[in-house]
């Protein structure tokens, strides 16, 4: 009975969407502001990657809101799971075999190096803070599953996460002090396609990468180890 009502409702919605989406073509320009960002992107922000200059240059305030949402979700998860330090949950995870253990020890530094490279070159090639932070968090997930009993240092991860967030807001306030707007690009823009270019964009991406990486690793640690 519930299945029939579900399928009927979805068919009605599908008919409505198909009738009203006949006018949208595929593969034609639809907006005007995309052209402005592509044509004037390099001389106004200095980053060669246009998606980076939109995310961290023109729309940096939205990125600050997104980091706040991720921070709130981590606080909620920590409040549900990790208040008492003495009670640990006892999941019966099998100890890993020799092949898995050796492969993990070989792959872990390669993953950390790849993540750091993608974070630092965020304004020159595809990549950036979020992608590099997710790769570093997957390296820590591999360490939890492949090594016998190694866990991350919790105090260090909390300090790194707090410093990342504070650096972002402090850079914005410095922009407010030196005269113009919040998160104004006050360092020099340099030459395009050089490593030290585009003002404060690489510094913001390093702060974002450290914060996202340590937050996601902390989420994994709370789920495996702690019960209330």
């Amino acid at each position: 009975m519930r299945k029939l009502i579900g399928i009927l409702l979805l068919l009605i919605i599908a008919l409505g969407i198909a009738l009203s989406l006949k006018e949208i073509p595929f593969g034609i320009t639809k907006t005007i502001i995309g052209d402005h960002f592509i044509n004037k992107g390099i001389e106004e922000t200095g980053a060669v990657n246009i998606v980076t200059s939109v995310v961290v240059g023109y729309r940096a305030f939205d990125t600050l809101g997104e980091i706040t949402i991720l921070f709130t979700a981590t606080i909620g998860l920590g409040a549900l799971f990790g208040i008492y330090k003495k009670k640990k949950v006892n999941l019966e995870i099998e100890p890993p075999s020799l092949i898995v253990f050796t492969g993990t020890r070989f792959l872990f530094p390669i993953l950390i190096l790849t993540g750091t490279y993608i974070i630092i070159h965020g304004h020159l090639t595809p990549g950036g803070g979020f992608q590099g932070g997710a790769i570093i968090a997957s390296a820590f997930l591999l360490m939890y599953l492949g090594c016998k009993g190694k866990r991350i240092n919790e105090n260090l991860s909390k300090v790194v996460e707090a410093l990342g967030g504070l650096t972002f807001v402090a850079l914005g306030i410095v922009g407010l002090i030196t005269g113009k707007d919040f998160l104004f690009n006050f360092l020099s823009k340099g030459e395009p396609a050089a490593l030290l270019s585009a003002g404060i964009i690489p510094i913001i991406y390093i702060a974002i990468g450290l914060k996202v990486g340590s937050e996601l690793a902390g989420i994994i640690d709370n789920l495996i180890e702690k019960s209330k």
Partner: protein
Amino acid sequence: MNFLSENIYYIGAFSLIFIGLYIVLVKKNLIKVIIGFSILDTGIYLFLITLGYITDGTAPIFSKSGLIADKMVDPVPQALVLTAIVIGVAVLALAISLAVKLYEHYGTLNLRKIKEQKW
């Protein structure tokens, strides 16, 4: 057949959205419902990126020095979807932690049975 070959991306994105909605509406197990949310999110991201595609365009990065600026794909939907992916994983982690706490409190993950109990 021409209509099908032009709009195949839109059909794929909306199929994922409808399958995700069906899982959320009909299924009883809480973790199955959260898997349905994840599939629904992936369908929406695919639809947004398809809106910004220009036929025979290239990625919006000036990596070499001779690239023309008027054959590039729209960069604004890509920035929006990048933000949306990170927000999606944050909401999913909080939902999973609430499901685990519900199982520890009630002893079952069946939504019909949880609604019938008082406390």
